[in-house]
């Protein structure tokens, strides 16, 4: 039944004329051989570029190598074997990717490190996807009425959705649901549509190839490829043109993914940190540009499919230069637009056309966008495991629907400028295109920012930041819009708006193989060799390139795990989807509530004394004094040099064992080497508490720490910890927690200057407090120095580097912190160089979902701290007694 008769000869042909021209490679056709070698070289370069930049996941890296080998075999196969081969290759990719099977697993099995049953167990998720998928395809072709088949599929789909919602019942195959959903949630509808209307040919190879499309296993967000187009574009042009177009698009995809990383790393994407209208504009622009990831992956996917003969059309077409909201809808995710047009817009419009064109169009447009919203929620469900019914998403789609409708009605009633060739447009017309492109770009930036904000309050805060622009900021914003205008003048005239059709290019458009080859080759070589050349010639670029390598969450996202619809559906940052589904493994921080307890005063929280639990995936125990540390006497024993350490969760040692924390490593070393013979014992009491800001550290020292009779007090500060400060003050304001009497005057002054009060939205309070962080730190450091001096305690500030400098704030922040500390009279130990020897900073964090400093990081910090601490606290030779500290 699968090979049902393809009735409509006028629509598509699957064995096109171009295939007749498939070359005989072993014949003496030098030109064709040269073309193939050039294509192979470019493909290899792109695979190496993806590997070098660690784009997306390790699974993609493996898949690209598999695709490269598969491409060569596929190309040399006789035409009739190609599609079955592609189908088999796709199935192999599903099994290997979901089973995390790489060459190392094969070697391990061969050498006996993995048992055969262990190896077979790893095949289960992939085989499950294939089994369920084949079952669904089989239902489509059952020998029964079409309606019955659809009904059966609906029942099967409901059953699978139920199981997806309870994926925890099958822990061994959790990650298969994402892939299964991604493959079938939309394509099954497209397939049924074409099956119903018999607009394309059907066969087992085509069905398997279509549903299990090779790159799908790496990309849950996948373009909705139209089945008819999938069939009709297969080798519909000469192979050099098909392959070369694919390479061009893959390169474009890689380039866009790298651009995305730059935006992601450097754009101001944290509303709470926006301090000016320019920042707000940067946020809006950045959020809109983050979509580059989607278009980049789609280009990469469709480009890769070209390498196997699928001459699919463009998925995105210069969408940042759309000249109207309707035009934007036509250019962004063209496959999706065509999918919903075919399923919802046209049927609704055709049913209602007796009402009149405008009414029919209006209703059809609203129905289409409503369906888009629902289907996006459906997509969210399959990828994330729960439905997304959020007023923000709904309002985003409805606002976009109204904007599209208004421009569509305008175009219907007033017409739209069209020309047979772009050169027919006058300068005035082009200027209009440019201005329209700027206006639409600006509007979409705002709308996208609205969609991406977590809450209405956050959006209000964004508008608040944008509300008082300076003339300079206005000039810069207009400069950017002018640039968009110029690009719109040059390229704003749309030349493509549909994913359907026979080819990717207008028929007869000139194609310059070697010119395209040269461009892709040079571009790919630049991507592969660029980092090495740049760091060699311009050492300053090392940090930039380092940050663009690998794929990790930035600090803000790591904290929030919330970045807008597409960003949150990006599972690429996780090694596997199992990790993402849980975000952090169950029980990773199970003991947080047991380990910390809330306080009603300015300290807000404290560690519960004498408890054992799990924090950061590691067992933690608190001592009787309420510290994550060894047991100490409250009263300092004789001949003991005692240091108290004030810090945050990194200093607590979240994610490492008690004996691995840097303070305990230093303590052990001091007790081994006795740098000062006056003391028989050295103690470092770790008073650090997760999430403490410098104000809490200071108060903790004043209220608790000084009672412990320390000889020295160390305050550990890091760049990213500044966020704790504004969060703490915001909580105090909104919860009406009074600061200590001696802090009140200063903090009231800060609140007044910042113009904040407890009734304001959280994001607005934090954003307005950010400019005063340095002033608060300065006050804290001065008071810290003063309080310690009064008690004869040595005050030391430790600047502790974060394992990963996500936002590139470390150097500036370090400079400022160290400057303020020294100005306040504090001794400073700068631990920044501790991590210099580690090129891959991923090696310094506990886990991908937990950025706390790991064991290696603590060891390096301990080395650096010991190196700085001993000459500072014990400057005189150990033979001579030390006199300037409090004598035990």
């Amino acid at each position, binding site marked *: 039944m699968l090979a049902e008769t393809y009735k409509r000869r*006028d*629509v*598509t042909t699957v064995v096109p004329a171009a295939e007749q021209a498939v070359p005989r490679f072993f014949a003496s056709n030098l030109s064709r051989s040269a073309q193939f070698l050039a294509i192979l070289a470019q493909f290899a370069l792109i695979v190496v570029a993806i590997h070098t930049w660690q784009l997306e996941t390790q699974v993609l890296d493996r898949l690209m190598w598999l695709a490269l080998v598969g491409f060569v075999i596929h190309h040399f196969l006789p035409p009739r074997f190609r599609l079955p081969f592609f189908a088999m290759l796709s199935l192999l990719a599903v099994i290997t990717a979901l089973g995390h099977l790489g060459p190392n697993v094969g070697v391990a099995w061969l050498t006996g490190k993995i048992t055969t049953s262990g190896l077979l167990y790893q095949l289960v998720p992939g085989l499950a996807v294939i089994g369920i998928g084949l079952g669904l395809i089989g239902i489509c072709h059952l020998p029964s009425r079409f309606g019955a088949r659809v009904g059966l599929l609906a029942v099967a789909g409901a059953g699978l959705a139920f199981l997806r919602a309870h994926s925890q019942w099958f822990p061994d195959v959790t990650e298969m649901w994402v892939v299964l959903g991604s493959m079938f949630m939309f394509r099954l509808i497209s397939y049924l*549509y074409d099956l119903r*209307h018999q*607009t394309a040919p059907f066969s087992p190879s085509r069905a398997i190839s279509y549903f299990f499309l090779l790159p799908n296993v790496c990309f849950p967000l996948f373009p909705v490829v139209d089945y008819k187009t999938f069939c*009709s574009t297969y080798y519909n042009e000469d192979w050099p043109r098909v392959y070369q177009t694919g390479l061009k698009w893959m390169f474009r995809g890689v380039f866009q993914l790298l651009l995305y990383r730059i935006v992601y790393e450097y754009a101001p994407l944290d509303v709470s940190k926006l301090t000016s209208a320019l920042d707000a504009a940067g946020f809006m622009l950045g959020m809109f540009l983050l979509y580059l990831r989607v278009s980049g992956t789609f280009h990469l996917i469709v480009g890769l499919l070209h390498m196997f003969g699928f001459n699919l*059309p463009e998925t995105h077409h210069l969408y940042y230069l759309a000249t109207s909201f*309707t035009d934007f809808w*036509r250019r962004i995710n063209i496959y999706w637009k065509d999918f919903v*047009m*075919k399923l919802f*817009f*046209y*049927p609704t*419009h*055709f049913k209602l*056309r007796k009402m009149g*064109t405008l009414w029919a*169009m209006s209703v059809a447009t609203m129905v289409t966008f409503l369906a888009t919203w629902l289907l996006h929620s459906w997509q969210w469900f399959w990828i994330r495991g729960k439905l997304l019914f959020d007023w923000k998403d709904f309002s985003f789609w409805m606002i976009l629907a109204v904007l599209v409708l208004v421009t*569509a009605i305008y*175009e*219907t009633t007033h*017409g*739209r400028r*069209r*020309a*047979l*060739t772009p050169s*027919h447009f006058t300068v005035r017309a082009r200027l209009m295109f440019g201005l329209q492109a700027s206006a639409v770009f600006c509007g979409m930036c705002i709308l996208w920012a609205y969609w991406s904000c977590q809450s209405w309050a956050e959006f209000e805060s964004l508008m608040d930041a944008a509300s008082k622009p300076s003339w300079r900021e206005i000039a810069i914003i207009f400069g950017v819009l002018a640039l968009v205008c110029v690009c719109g003048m040059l390229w704003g005239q*749309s*030349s*493509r*708006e*549909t994913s*359907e*059709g*026979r*080819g990717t290019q*207008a*028929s*007869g458009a000139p194609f310059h193989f070697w010119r395209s080859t040269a461009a892709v080759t040079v571009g790919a070589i630049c991507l592969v060799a660029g980092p090495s050349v740049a760091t060699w010639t311009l050492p300053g670029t090392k940090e930039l390139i380092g940050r663009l390598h690998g794929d990790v969450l930035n600090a803000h996202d790591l904290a929030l795990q919330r970045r807008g619809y597409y960003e949150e559906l990006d599972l690429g940052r996780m090694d596997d989807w199992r990790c993402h589904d849980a975000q952090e493994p169950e029980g990773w921080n199970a003991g947080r509530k047991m380990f910390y307890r809330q306080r009603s005063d300015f300290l807000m929280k404290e560690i519960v004394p004498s408890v054992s639990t799990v924090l950061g995936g590691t067992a933690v125990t608190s001592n009787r004094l309420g510290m994550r540390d060894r047991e100490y006497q409250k009263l300092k024993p004789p001949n003991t040099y005692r240091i108290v350490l004030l810090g945050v969760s990194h200093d607590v040692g979240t994610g490492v064992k008690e004996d691995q924390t840097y303070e305990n490593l230093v303590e052990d070393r001091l007790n081994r080497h006795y740098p000062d013979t006056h003391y028989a014992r050295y103690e470092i009491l770790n008073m650090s508490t997760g999430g403490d800001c410098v104000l809490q550290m200071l108060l903790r020292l004043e209220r608790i720490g000084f009672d412990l009779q320390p000889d020295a007090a160390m305050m550990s500060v890091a760049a990213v910890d500044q966020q704790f400060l504004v969060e703490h003050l915001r909580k105090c304001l909104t919860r009406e927690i009074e600061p200590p009497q001696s802090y009140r005057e200063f903090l009231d002054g800060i609140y007044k200057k910042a113009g904040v009060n407890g009734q304001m939205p959280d994001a607005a309070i934090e954003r307005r407090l950010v400019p005063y962080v340095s002033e608060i730190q300065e006050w804290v450091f001065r008071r810290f120095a003063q309080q310690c001096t009064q008690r004869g305690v040595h005050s030391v500030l430790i600047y502790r580097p974060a394992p990963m400098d996500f936002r590139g704030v470390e150097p500036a922040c370090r400079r400022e912190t160290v400057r303020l500390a020294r100005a306040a009279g504090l001794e400073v130990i700068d631990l920044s160089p501790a991590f210099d020897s580690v090129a891959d900073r991923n090696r310094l964090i506990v886990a991908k979902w937990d950025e706390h400093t790991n064991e290696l990081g603590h060891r390096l910090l301990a080395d650096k701290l010991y190196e700085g601490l001993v000459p500072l606290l014990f400057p005189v030779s150990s033979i001579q007694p030390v006199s300037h500290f409090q004598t035990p």
Partner: protein
Amino acid sequence: MNPEDIKSAVKKFILNEYLPGEDPAALTDTTPLVTTGILDSIAVLKVVSFLENQFDILIQPHEAVVENLNTLSDIERFVAAKKA
């Protein structure tokens, strides 16, 4: 109806509605209309209405696709098939 008559009527409609001022000779039988954006989704609806009224045919939603409407030749072939 003569195929040339169909093409001629459709060409006249497209030139009047969407390409005013363009050289009629530049719009050939094989000029892509949908894939180049000359006929967008809204214009397609108008073309469909025109074809239905002009040639007294009924077009289904799934027939309003690029394969049937991309060029004058495609349109002529489609109309001829519908009338047959």
